[in-house]
């Protein structure tokens, strides 16, 4: 059936239906509390050594659940985190749009650092970059392991999904963007990150 034959009454029904879906779906289909950056609790939690100072490591991932109104995020330090600033940022898949960014003073060993002041949502089925950096070299944090020398090339086989970003950070603060990505395969263990709303 073509649209030419639709009466105003039909268009009205279509509009009402679309409005109802638009009203219901965002709250119904996404987390309104918290969300692991990986879709669930990670099976491996290892102490990972971070990149050189202000080098930004990034991982692209397709969101499988979605979350509405992220305001904060957290990570956990490793055994020797050092003293400095840790930055996190979230980007559109092309690196053109920065969804959010924040810094936090690197906390003591094996404790949580919480980034605040974020304000964005992640949509189910859409790909996003998670990027992280530190003002100091070789800080440690909890992430995947061991070194993904095998999985890295696989991730980057058809598209860049594990990369360093340019420009990098400045004193631990992520750039405003846009950013570009250079595929990387070693020393890229992903940081474990937990996202949260204002009421996580």
């Amino acid at each position: 059936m073509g649209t030419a034959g639709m009466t105003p009454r039909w268009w009205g029904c279509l509009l009402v239906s679309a409005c109802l879906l638009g009203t219901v779906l965002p709250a119904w289909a996404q987390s309104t509390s918290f969300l692991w950056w990986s879709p669930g609790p990670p099976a491996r939690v290892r102490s990972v050594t971070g990149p050189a100072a202000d080098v930004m490591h990034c991982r692209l991932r397709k969101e499988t659940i979605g979350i509405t109104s992220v305001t904060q995020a957290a990570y956990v330090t490793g055994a020797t985190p050092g003293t400095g600033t840790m930055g996190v940022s979230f980007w559109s898949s092309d690196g053109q749009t920065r969804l959010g960014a924040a810094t936090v003073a690197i906390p003591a060993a094996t404790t949580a650092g919480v980034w605040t002041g974020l304000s964005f949502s992640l949509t189910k089925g859409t790909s996003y970059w998670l990027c992280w950096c530190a003002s100091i070299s070789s800080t440690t944090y909890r992430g995947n392991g061991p070194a993904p020398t095998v999985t890295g090339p696989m991730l980057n086989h058809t598209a860049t999904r594990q990369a360093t970003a340019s420009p990098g950070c400045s004193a631990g603060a992520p750039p405003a963007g846009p950013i570009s990505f250079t595929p990387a395969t070693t020393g890229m263990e992903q940081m474990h990150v937990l996202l949260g709303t204002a009421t996580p």
Partner: protein
Amino acid sequence: MTGVLRIVLACALLVVPARAAELIYLGTDGIPQETNTISRTGSNNALYCADLIPPIGITNATKLAFRGGVAVSNTVGIAVYTHAGACPETGSCALVSTTFAGTIANDTLNVVTGLSAFSIPDGTGEMVRVCHCRSGGASNYRAAINVSTDVGTLRTLWNALAVHAGLAVEACSAGTPPGFTGTLSDDGSTNAVPPLLAIGK
């Protein structure tokens, strides 16, 4: 009228969840790659829980499998709760399945069938709470984590923004889980890491 019906049907198809599975795992970020035995500590009948946001759901589940157990003459309880509304704040989360309450040997595969049908939301972002307890004695269970994983920092991150893995206000009774959990508190134990559950129809 026919056109209106077509629109209604189209909308209904859009709304109906499309990915409900025949089998899902709770306690992991996908198909479990490895497991580790958690030796359960804490008081008898203490209820430990973890909140999960399953990426894939299941409808009308009636079966469940987990690996773990309790010393003979004691009872282990495992239960799944859903968060209708604001469960962590109000303690009003509802029990959807008492999956097991019985006496079994430690580190044994337990398959439970004939459960009252229950459903897990399908990637909607709704939280599910997985809990376990035991009436007494030594017990253990398998979690979907690597043997060398630092379980303590996993719990730290889980609770970094709010307590989503810990000891529940409500307790079990002779190893049988309560109807709702109440709020959770982080008692610093590794019991908060949830057991790996396979849920099927």
